């Protein structure tokens, strides 16, 4: 049994534990222990992976486990990881762990809340370790559907509307993905032999160009919906604003990465020729998304909306980088996913904590919070600085890599797109600094705020965990970048091999 199976077994055991817990406290502690173990196994996985690579194991995927599931249709339970998936698993474990502590104050139906949350997490873990398209899709949907309950029951504002909108849009995306997957399956063995869902095997085959061009838009849009591809991003602001804290964290931090990861792992990897052929359409959309999200964030007054739009911008940057089709930019895309994942989770955690104390999320009703809750305020500044890409934090490393990679494409089209996208950095600085200024500095506008207490112990654990992640990547990006590069190798090679088909 491979170590990867742990990432499925631990959540399942945790859920069983939660179902048998007697009190609120017990539910929380079972979740903490379960997700703590998950975080430890993620760290263990990273170390093991690095050790294997150091020892010279150059296999495309490591820690493989392959069980036949449906013999007739050749469906396997096939798991394995490369550098990219390892990094994503680390991200997920970190955010989920922080998320448990950030939702310490859930009073209403805690058992159901933590069950859904961990169900969602197990879907995400399963998605990242799967190498079989069928199981991958299964976990993808498993990760999406608990969102309906999480937002609908524990959310705020127009939660019923947001939950329904989010679920239907994401499941609509998954309908497209399903069509794409079945299409790929039907053409997975052009030279005869059994059809297969095996990602690695399919990547060795060449699917006919017309089929690729038919399937690529479905897959890219399908995953793009979750990756907040403009104009399919509209679920994101509503969903994030209505969701409870931990769910926003997980959703923006991890779930949206499923979209980017899927675009790159399934759409671009398996259909490289079509990606070259049709990539420009999505590049335009992604560029619009980057700049639109940033400008969208400027106009908002609600903290969660600001962050949701900034997530749209940052996630669009991931898709933008993937569509640049070169090693550096793709490297940046993965870094950006991880950096944004941790950073935005930190943002949403802090917003939740601030909201829990001030009972408002409107920035013009707040001010001077630095004086009453210095710990949270400083953390907010750190998250903000990471978001606008200050050197020393993860955001800088990621964005630099992306733009350097993007600029390697010498033609006018890519250059223009790059310049437009790069200008979003300035806009990002505007909205981040504006919020920091209004929210934290200045005078206290409301006398009730004088009595506010600073972070409690569980808040601190949550925040410190995430800040640790941001600075670790910001200060020592090379180990991560090396790990990702190793995983990207086959994909970039495949893309380059497909390029000559271009006219």
């Amino acid at each position: 049994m491979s170590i990867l199976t742990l990432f499925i077994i631990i959540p399942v055991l945790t859920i069983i534990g939660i179902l048998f817990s007697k009190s609120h406290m017990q539910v929380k502690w079972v979740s903490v222990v379960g997700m703590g173990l998950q975080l430890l196994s993620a760290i263990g996985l990273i170390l093991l992976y690095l050790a294997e690579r150091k020892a010279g194991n150059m296999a495309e995927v490591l820690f493989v486990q392959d069980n036949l599931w449906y013999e007739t249709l050749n469906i396997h339970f096939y798991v394995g990881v490369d550098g990219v998936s390892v990094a994503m698993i680390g991200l997920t474990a970190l955010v989920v762990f922080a998320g448990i502590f950030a939702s310490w104050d859930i009073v209403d139906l805690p058992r159901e809340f933590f069950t859904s949350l961990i169900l969602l997490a197990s879907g995400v873990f399963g998605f990242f370790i799967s190498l079989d398209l069928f199981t991958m899709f299964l976990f993808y949907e498993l990760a999406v559907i608990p969102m309906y309950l999480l937002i609908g029951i524990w959310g705020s504002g127009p939660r019923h509307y947001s939950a329904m909108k989010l679920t239907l849009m994401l499941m609509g995306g998954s309908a497209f993905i399903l069509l794409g997957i079945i299409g790929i399956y039907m053409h997975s063995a052009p030279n005869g032999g059994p059809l297969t869902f095996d990602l690695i095997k399919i990547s060795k085959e060449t699917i006919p160009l017309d089929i690729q061009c038919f399937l690529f838009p479905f897959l890219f849009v399908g995953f793009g919906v979750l990756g907040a591809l403009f104009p399919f991003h509209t679920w994101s602001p509503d969903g994030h604003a209505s969701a409870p804290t931990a769910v926003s964290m997980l959703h923006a931090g991890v779930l949206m990465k499923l979209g980017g990861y899927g675009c790159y792992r399934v759409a671009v990897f398996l259909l490289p020729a079509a990606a070259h052929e049709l990539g420009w359409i999505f590049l335009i959309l992604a560029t619009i998304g980057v700049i639109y999200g940033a400008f969208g964030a400027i106009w908002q007054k609600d903290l969660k909306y600001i962050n949701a739009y900034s997530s749209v911008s940052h996630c669009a940057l991931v898709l933008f980088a993937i569509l640049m089709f070169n090693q550096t930019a793709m490297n940046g895309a993965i870094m950006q996913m991880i950096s944004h994942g941790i950073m935005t989770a930190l943002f949403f955690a802090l917003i939740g904590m601030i909201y829990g104390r001030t009972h408002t999320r409107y920035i013009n009703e707040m001010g001077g919070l630095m004086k009453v809750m210095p710990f949270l305020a400083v953390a907010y500044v750190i998250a903000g600085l990471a978001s606008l890409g200050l050197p020393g934090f993860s955001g800088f490393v990621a964005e630099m890599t992306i733009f350097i990679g993007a600029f390697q494409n010498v033609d006018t089209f890519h250059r223009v797109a790059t310049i437009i996208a790069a200008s979003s950095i300035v806009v990002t600085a505007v909205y981040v600094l504006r919020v920091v200024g209004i929210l934290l500095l200045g005078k206290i506008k409301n006398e009730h705020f004088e009595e506010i207490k600073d972070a409690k112990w569980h808040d601190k654990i949550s925040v410190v965990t995430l800040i640790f992640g941001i600075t670790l990547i910001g200060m020592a990006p090379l180990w991560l970048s090396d790990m990702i590069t190793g995983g990207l190798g086959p994909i970039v090679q495949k893309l380059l091999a497909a390029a000559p088909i271009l006219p």
Partner: protein
Amino acid sequence: MLIMRHELLLIAITVILLIVEIFLPNTQKRKIILPAILLMAAVTVLGFFPGTPGILFGGMFQSSQLTMMLKNILNIGVLIIFIQSVDWLKQDQNKEKVSEFFLLMLSTLIGMNFMISSGDFLMFYIGLELATIPVAALAAYERLKEKSAEAGVKLIFISALSSGILLYGLSMIYGTTGTMYFVDVAPMITGAPLQVLAFIFFFAGMAFKISLVPFHLWTADVYEGAPVNVTSYLSVISKGAAVFIFTIILYTVFSKIAVMWSELLYVITLLTITVGNLFAMRQQNLKRFLAFSSIAQAGFILLGVIGQSQLGMTTVIYFALVYIFSNLGAFGVVGIISNRTGKENINDYDGLYRTNPNLSLVMMLALFSLAGIPPLAGFFGKFFLFTAAAKQGYYWLVLIALVNTIISLYYYLLVIKAMLLNNSDQPIAKFKSDGYTRLGLLLCVAGIVIIGFTSSVYELVFNLSFGLN
């Protein structure tokens, strides 16, 4: 004799129950419930023992591993319905006619078994009629309720009409081929105009039974009027059996004009899924809601029928099995709540989770399975249906069906929203359901959760579907 094992066993227990019934005084009819369920359980278990395939009556009756499995599936469904009906049968209004419920149900089941095993259009027709007429009596079971009586009358009229159409088609087949045996008819189907007409009549007749659009108009009224347990029988067992034999006849008898019926099915599938879904969205009464949802589900099953070949047959049977468990789960919850409170509307379910969490969970699982959400069985069923249809190259049909699954998810979520998200000043009060109901729901949940994970069910169905085409 072993060849007709399923039928003989059912006839035997019907006779036993009939005799027992005679000796029970009118006030003691309830005593028949437990023996009826136990006997049905015994029959279900005995059905799983390996039997001998073969033909009887000069080919009118044929039995194979496949038909035996189909009968087993129906047996399981009927057993669950028996268990779920206990709570309702124990009500005072039904105390004098408890045994009729079981007897009528068993006789329709016998009819279905004959229908599935038929090797000849005549036998098929007799089985079909035997399966239909008692159901009309069952639909009118609560005869003092106007709606129930209305449902019974509607069902008998519609059955008569559709049987007439079907018979007319069969007569044309006999006229052009000179025989009624499947094996003899099959090679003589050439696609001559009269045969096409015959096929269309046959198709229309079956479409009434499976309630495909545009032959679905009776469905919602009958489902609403009939008692919940009869409704679940109609929507699951009746429909399942009709789909099975429909697919078998299409694949064996009409395989030579497959091109023709594929196109017809294409259109009918689109209509059925879409219309069923669009109407389901607007329903307030849960029985009507499930009626339209089951119309849409029948459309999904047709996707598998279009898939043809062994893969198509497999997915049809597999999905029908999954659908039986999921739909019975949903109907079971609707039934028990209707019995205890008389409430059948979606907004009556507001805040149900806070008062009756277990029932809500069962309902949620059943609806998610119907919507095709992993890791529940419905997901696997739908996935295989789409694969089967895509294998024949019907990508656009699959896409439209996929869009329809999102529409269906929307209305299934409406019920889940009522139960879990909404709060109500007057939620359905907390009540304790009896052991039978719990057992029935537990069986459904077990089916919903387990069938998908254990690939062996699918492999078994696949291996038995071999040789149909």
